[in-house]
């Protein structure tokens, strides 16, 4: 809704658009208190917002400059109403969300701010909810969002997604931001499972907007959706009802969402259309290999190792190397895995990452060296970033101690 109103008022009037939406919500709740919730609340809200926007446009026509490209059409009573009807049509709204998404991925904005502002404007997360998602304070999040809005307001109009050259320059950033949004939900630090699932779903909703766009419907977008579907299929078992983290090895695989898996595989097939091989393709391939194994032992670790090899060639990050080492341990035994871990190039960059120590612990434990394993888990525990990780690691330490005292 904010996206559509921003299209009408112009990006520089973002605050006005937000006020109108806020107002529409307040009125809606007041009327619904008396009359009950209508059958289609979102249509009701849209209609209210449209009427409020008309009021604002009529009242402030002379005082403010609205969207420059619509300016003349909004000025005349003759064209105002029909133009507004068009702007509030369902496909126009989708289009506006897409344009807003591209506008938010402004090159002058840091990645985290892009994700935050998208959550705030396009997903309707309150400042507190955004702060919760990033495990950040209200004040810091507020500051980040305010700064992002200023940058946004400087751009005057929503990003034009029909111009192929402009589209393609910003397209990779948009994909990247949606990828981060999804990962924030999947791996992020928020202890609340509900928040994280919501983040993943929002990322999937926004990426599906891309798929409806002629320029956005590229193989790389399909790869990203495939990756999201295949990973999201595992969400229900990643964190259990008590908010406890479960590693890939002890998840109840029968609870994986089969429908998402098959959708993911279908998208993965579509993503193979081009000649371009991206990180999203490979990560989706890895997720597919996991999703297709009904038991951990049936996983095709050899294929996964070679996918990680390809991923390292594209993106030589120590975390990818760590995951590769774990896959090698699965395929060739824990000793080989440990050796791989020792030879990770930028090993020192992993020192603050709790799952590096945790992986060392896991492999030592499998080698039967419980005491060493326990030390690694303790080191990981000291680095843990949230209660969920702490509970998980404490559990692993307990396993080491229980087994070492016969």
């Amino acid at each position, binding site marked *: 809704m904010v996206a559509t109103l921003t299209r009408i008022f112009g990006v520089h009037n973002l605050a006005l658009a937000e006020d109108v939406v806020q107002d529409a*919500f*307040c009125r809606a*709740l007041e*009327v619904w*208190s*008396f009359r*009950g*919730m209508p059958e289609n609340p979102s249509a009701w809200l849209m209609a209210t917002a449209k009427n409020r926007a008309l009021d604002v446009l009529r009242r402030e026509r002379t005082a403010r400059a609205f969207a420059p490209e619509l300016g003349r059409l909004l000025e005349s009573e003759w064209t105002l109403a029909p133009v507004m009807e068009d702007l509030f049509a369902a496909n126009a709204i989708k289009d506006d969300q897409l344009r807003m998404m591209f506008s938010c991925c402004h090159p002058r904005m840091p990645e985290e701010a892009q994700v935050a502002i998208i959550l705030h404007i396009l997903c309707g997360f*309150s400042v507190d909810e955004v702060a919760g998602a990033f495990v950040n304070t209200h004040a810091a999040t507020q500051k980040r969002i305010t700064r992002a809005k200023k940058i946004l307001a400087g751009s005057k109009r929503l990003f034009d997604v029909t111009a192929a050259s402009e589209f393609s320059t910003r397209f990779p950033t948009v994909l990247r931001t949606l990828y981060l949004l999804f990962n924030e939900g999947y791996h992020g630090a928020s202890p609340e499972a509900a928040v994280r699932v919501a983040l993943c779903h929002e990322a999937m909703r926004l990426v599906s907007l891309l798929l409806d766009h002629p320029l956005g419907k590229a193989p790389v977008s399909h790869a990203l959706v495939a990756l999201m579907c295949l990973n999201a299929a595992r969400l229900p078992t990643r964190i259990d009802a008590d908010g406890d983290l479960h590693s890939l090895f002890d998840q109840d695989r029968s609870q994986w969402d089969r429908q998402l898996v098959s959708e993911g595989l279908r998208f993965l097939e579509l993503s193979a259309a081009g000649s371009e091989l991206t990180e999203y393709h490979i990560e989706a391939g890895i997720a597919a290999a996991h999703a297709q194994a009904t038991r951990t032992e049936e996983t095709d670790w050899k294929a996964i190792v070679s996918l990680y090899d390809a991923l390292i060639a594209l993106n030589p990050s120590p975390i990818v190397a760590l995951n590769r080492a774990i896959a090698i341990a699965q395929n060739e035994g824990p000793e080989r895995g440990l050796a791989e871990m020792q030879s990770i190039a930028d090993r020192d960059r992993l020192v603050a990452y709790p799952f590096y120590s945790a992986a060392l612990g896991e492999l030592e434990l499998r080698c039967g060296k419980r005491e060493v394993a326990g030390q690694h888990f303790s080191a990981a525990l000291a680095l843990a970033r949230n209660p969920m990780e702490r509970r998980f690691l404490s559990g692993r330490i307990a396993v080491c101690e229980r087994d070492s005292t016969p």
Partner: protein
Amino acid sequence: MSEFLFLYRGADRGGSPEQLQQRMQKWTAWMKELTTKGHMKDQGHPLERSGKVVKGKRKTVIDGPFAESKDLVGGYTLIEARDLEQAVELSKGCPIFEAESAALEVRPIMIMNI
């Protein structure tokens, strides 16, 4: 059975989305309770904050009403009850009283049975 008009004055408005939603749920629940107990004649409507006031013999039209917000009528409902006493009892369940200075006015409707 007699009819009564409930006039809501000075209800809470605004707040965080969560507060708004909670408030709406309470109101909806209350309205529903009155309905299932057979007291609801007409749910009525909330009212806009301001309109016009036409005043006096000369029918002067002014913007308004500019009452203090705690005195401003924010909505109305038409209730059926045995007597004034019961209507007052019914009114006590209204979520409006979560606001410090809110008031619910219970006014019997004059009906001439001919």
